[in-house]
């Protein structure tokens, strides 16, 4: 086993994509013939049964309930025993005709793209940095990230609200000492600065997950290959683009997808910032908008319809991306 071959993380089958049926994959392209029917047809199905069973048990009923409820008139009265009435698409109509909705959607998409891309860029950078530095520095960096990740949200949000507070905040205190007239400046009053603060917090919170996951992916990249590429004259950027990124693509793609999904419906951070200042109506993103339309008002029919709407929106937005991920699967 002195193969200088990179150990490639890929599902690409050694032989072309022909007839279906079970077929073991060769991890090193062209290294080995396919070992067809190595373990029989049933094995893979048995292997996914636990995952499927778990998902059905835990999510089956709630998801069906939600779908059904989205077509019903279901408020607090119904929760307390009155029979819910089927109203067809009324809940959906109420949502899409809400004059505020599309502004909120546009705002959310912009916020989501900025935060998610920034998060993945910084996270990826940190992962590369972890690889480049010594063991002790790496563990310090990992620990710092983990500390941020492990900090309970109530504590981290409280601290952040303190930091940007108009009167007692460390940010204004520092700016004043740097000669900026920021005394009493209220960062949450203007929607733009509100969202900058929110984005900083969201990025700060999500980078640890991204960085540590990508770093785990990077450990699979063979140093030999990188060295070989370097000897062949590949520059740092080229190595990143042509060797590292393709190798960690699976991790990278899921992490980016998750960030997009999470940042599209960011709720807690926005809600807490709204409670601290700012004007709710001008700073609502999908998460908070949906909350006050549905759950906050005790209108669970609408809340469910909004959930389905959000699912559809997420799927629509990420469809191209999901397809490109799926393409790599075949």
């Amino acid at each position, binding site marked *: 086993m002195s193969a200088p071959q990179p150990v490639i993380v890929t599902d690409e089958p050694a032989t072309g994509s022909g007839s279906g049926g079970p077929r073991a994959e060769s991890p090193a392209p062209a290294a080995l013939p396919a070992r067809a029917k190595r373990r029989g047809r049933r094995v893979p199905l048995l292997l996914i049964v636990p995952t499927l069973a778990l998902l059905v048990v835990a999510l089956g009923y709630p998801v069906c309930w939600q779908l059904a409820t989205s077509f019903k008139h279901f408020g*607090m009265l119904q929760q307390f025993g009155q029979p819910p009435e089927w109203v067809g698409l009324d809940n959906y109509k109420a949502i899409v005709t809400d004059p505020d909705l599309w502004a909120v959607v546009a705002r959310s998409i912009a916020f989501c793209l900025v935060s998610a891309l920034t998060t993945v860029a910084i996270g990826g950078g940190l992962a590369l940095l972890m690889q480049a530095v010594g063991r002790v520095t790496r563990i310090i960096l990992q620990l710092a990230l983990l500390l941020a990740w492990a900090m309970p949200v109530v504590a981290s949000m409280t601290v952040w609200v303190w930091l940007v507070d108009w009167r007692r905040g460390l940010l204004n205190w520092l700016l004043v000492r740097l000669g900026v007239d920021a005394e009493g400046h209220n960062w949450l009053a203007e929607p733009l600065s509100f969202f900058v603060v929110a984005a900083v917090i969201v990025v700060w919170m999500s980078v640890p997950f991204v960085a540590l996951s990508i770093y785990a992916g990077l450990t699979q990249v063979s140093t030999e290959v990188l060295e070989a590429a370097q000897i062949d004259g590949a520059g740092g950027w080229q190595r990143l683009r042509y060797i590292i990124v393709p190798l960690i693509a699976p991790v990278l793609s899921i992490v980016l997808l998750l960030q997009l999904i999470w940042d599209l419906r960011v709720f807690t951070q926005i809600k807490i910032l709204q409670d601290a200042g700012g004007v709710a109506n001008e700073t609502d993103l999908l998460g908070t908008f949906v909350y006050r339309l549905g759950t*906050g008002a005790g209108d669970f029919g609408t809340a469910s319809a909004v959930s389905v709407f959000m699912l559809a929106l997420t799927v629509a937005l990420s469809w191209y991306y999901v397809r490109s991920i799926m393409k790599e699967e075949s």
Partner: protein
Amino acid sequence: MKKTLGLAVATTTALLLTACGGGGTTASPGASPSKADNSKRTITLWLAGSDTPQELRTYLQDTFKTKTGATLKIEEQAWPDLVTKLTTALPDPKNTPDVVELGNTQSPTFTNVGAFSDISDMYDELGGSKLLPSFVDAGSVDGKKYALPYYFGSRYMFARADLWKEAGVATPKTLDEFNTAVKTITAKNPRNIKNFSGFFIGGQDWRNGISWIFANGGDLAKKENGQWVSTLSDPNTVKGLQQLQDLYRNASKAPADAKDVTPWLYVNDSDEILDDKQQVTGKTSLAAATIMAPGWAHWSIGDLKTKDGKKVREWNPAKFTAFVLPGNDGKPAPVFAGGSNIAISKASQNQDLARELMKIIFSGDYQQKLGGAGLGPANSDYVSSLGSDEFAKALIASASNSKLTPAAPGWAAVESAQVMEEFFGKIRDAADLTALAKAYDAKITPMLNMK
């Protein structure tokens, strides 16, 4: 893990047994069962937050045991999550708490949807007309009583007596006098403090701001022909809003979006910050001569003192004073009251025992204990138990005329959408208040009624 596995097995078995057993076995209410029957029964009381002191909890448990022979389990629920927990657990006969405490403004929603048992027949026994009327209203539907007051707090003014004196202003007797006084203090700014407010009130702080609406005879909403209607553009309401706008512009330097929950910071003198050489490095944090806050804020107002090695605030009567916001007629203005209600879950399988518990809670003994703990007792016969210091006096006086938010079923939706915050935040810079109020009436009215 053994324990959890055991738990899993036990719960599964229990599930099977209940499934096979058919309908629940409801104890017939009314007939007070003898003690011996009850020794194995337990009822659950949900208390909100840590406001009810341990001593009172123990009293409830002991008295309940003595009176009924059954066990009282008390579970504390966190305030911020109370609505979620009530929404899920109350309709579930298997897991519902038997008696629950909930915020007074949360009461209308749950009362209207039928979450609670009708206790009109006990109303007189529990205190009747002596019980704080605004709270009783919040827990009633069509004259039937479901949720009754548990304890109350109220809002009044905390002022810097020294600053008022320096500005040469006397304690106001009417609302107009108050409005003029705080504007004068702002204009005079006796200590030349940057951004100084004679009266600090955040732009979005509607819970304090509505006092000006109430004081001028206005209201947030009223019930007309069985439907709730928002009344922000009612002439009396607008009169109050105009006074408030004047204060926002000429008395308060608070940001228009401030809803600061800790206004007492602005009337305190400097928080002394010591460096490691015990040198004071902090600067003055005094920024206002007057604030309006719930009565319990007095714990946080005062001079900085060290007590038992801990830094605490100690009220200094020479520097601080507390008074009730006066109304136009010189009597206390109606202010927004805080506090909570208590009710029996309709799904409870232990209606009889739950009613016994209510009797204990509304007994003179327990009401006095509430007052002793600084919580306004629901029954006005016992308010003297609050004591006779200036805070007790202000609390009793302000509560005598207190009001609540509309008992409309959809009020919770208005609050969760933060519409009131939004509306009040726009008052300061509004050119046409009536038009603004009309716009928000149109927004709020559809939210008020049960969908």
